[in-house]
């Protein structure tokens, strides 16, 4: 596939609401300090749940800040996260969407695993638990998976292609890829894109418990004493634009989104395959025009489950060959938890930070190396090193792989 005719895509804004706080900088600072936001689960039903820990957006997040009352009543927590992260990203980009054709030429693509889970859970409780005859009249507009994308579109008058993307834990990366492709092929000049998730409800937590994949102490990716994944929540939203659009207006470019890779394992609904994920990484490299040795850092999917960590390590070897030994690989899920449909977006904040500041965030809680995971996982302490290019891996239940390749800002 030739990439010659395609436009280059750059990142000019980013925003995040995460367990490490409000704002992309709060997230990035926490990650580079190796600070884990995993703590005791704060939930009204925590007493009767088996899951005891999570990575939750702190109570200091005020969803009402700068959002008018009429909009607020339309929002599930999922969309609250997304709207706040979008505002930060748009502000940083400096774009004025009311200028000329900018609003009409801007796409919105937001990934989410399940959409308005909090609303769904509340209404189910009313109907089945309390035998109420009535659901809240705004339930549908809060629950629908596209609510976040639509609310961002309405808030800024963005009238280009706008939709949601769902692929479980790869939703954010799949969404960002759709947005980038639309810019590359000229369907839009700008895109507001990322992922959002807020699904720490009683029902969802019970469902995760039943799968028996949750850790009870903390998230320890690539460490042999790992005990599973830790659920998180949050949103990461980015402004992407064509390089010429960004340069023409003198925008500050944070990084270049140079290549993308998407594959399906087509094997098992939950057990990952190294072939599928390595193929996605190889695609992303080829699409970005990168040789393996051009890459310095991989932000791993790194869930902290045995199935992921061993398979992902093998997949990186398959895709990178001998250069795998020279890569810095880290899982920031050890600090921000697994935010499912938002995870790729939170991790893109880490990747942009690494490219911009020449610092690789660590894998926290890695205190006992696993012989089956034989790469350099940057244990516990961030590393100052030049990062020319980086990959960001997201692999989902369902066997779905989405990989982003980023280069330092030109």
């Amino acid at each position: 596939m030739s990439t010659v005719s395609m436009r280059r895509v750059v990142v000019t804004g980013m925003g995040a609401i995460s367990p490490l706080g409000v704002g992309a900088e709060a997230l990035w600072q926490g990650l580079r300090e190796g600070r884990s936001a995993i703590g005791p689960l704060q939930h009204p039903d925590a007493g009767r749940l088996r899951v005891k820990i999570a990575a939750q957006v702190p109570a200091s997040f005020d969803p009402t800040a700068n959002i008018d009352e009429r909009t607020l009543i339309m929002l599930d927590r999922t969309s609250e996260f997304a709207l706040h992260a979008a505002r930060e990203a748009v502000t940083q980009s400096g774009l004025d969407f009311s200028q000329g054709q900018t609003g009409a030429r801007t796409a919105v693509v937001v990934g989410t695993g399940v959409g308005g889970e909090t609303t769904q859970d509340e209404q189910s409780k009313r109907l089945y638990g309390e035998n109420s005859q009535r659901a809240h009249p705004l339930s549908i507009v809060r629950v629908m998976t596209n609510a976040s994308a639509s609310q961002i579109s309405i808030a800024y008058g963005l009238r280009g292609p706008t939709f949601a993307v769902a692929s479980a834990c790869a939703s954010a990366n799949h969404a960002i890829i759709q947005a980038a492709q639309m810019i590359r092929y000229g369907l839009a000049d700008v895109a507001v894109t990322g992922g959002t998730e807020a699904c720490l409800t009683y029902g969802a937590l019970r469902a995760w418990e039943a799968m028996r994949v949750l850790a009870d102490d903390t998230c320890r990716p690539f460490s042999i004493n790992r005990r599973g994944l830790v659920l998180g929540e949050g949103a990461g939203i980015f402004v992407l634009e064509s390089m010429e659009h960004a340069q023409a207006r003198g925008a500050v470019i944070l990084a270049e989104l140079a290549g993308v890779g998407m594959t399906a394992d087509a094997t098992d609904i939950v057990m990952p395959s190294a072939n599928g994920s390595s193929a996605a990484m190889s695609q992303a490299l080829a699409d970005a025009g990168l040789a393996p040795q051009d890459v310095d850092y991989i932000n791993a999917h790194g869930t902290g489950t045995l199935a992921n960590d061993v398979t992902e390590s093998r997949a990186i070897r398959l895709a990178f060959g001998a250069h795998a030994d020279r890569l810095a690989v880290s899982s920031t899920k050890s600090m921000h938890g697994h935010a499912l449909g938002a995870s790729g977006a939170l991790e893109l904040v880490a990747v942009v930070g690494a490219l911009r500041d020449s610092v690789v965030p660590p894998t926290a809680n890695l205190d006992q190396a696993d012989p089956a995971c034989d790469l350099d996982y940057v244990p516990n302490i961030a590393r100052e090193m030049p990062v020319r290019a980086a990959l960001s891996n997201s692999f989902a239940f369902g066997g779905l792989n989405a990989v982003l390749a980023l280069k330092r800002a030109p």
Partner: protein
Amino acid sequence: MTDTTQQQVFDIIAKQAKIDVTTIKPESTLKDLGIASLEAIELIFDIEEHFNITFPDQQGANFDTDTTQSLVDAVQKALDEKAAAGEGSK
């Protein structure tokens, strides 16, 4: 109670794996019986529902490679703990 704990557990496994219950041996692993990871989790759920017990999270345990005897033992342990906790057992 007519059936032993073992008999009840084996019946549930046989139903899940769609095999004759007499082919299940205490030393068989779930994997031997053709029960893959996600089905093993579902089997655990069926057993919990049947006995009204909750297995503790066996961190690091791999249900695929557990023997049926270890499952029976785990059920018996959970039943004993439930009885000891005074919740009563039938």
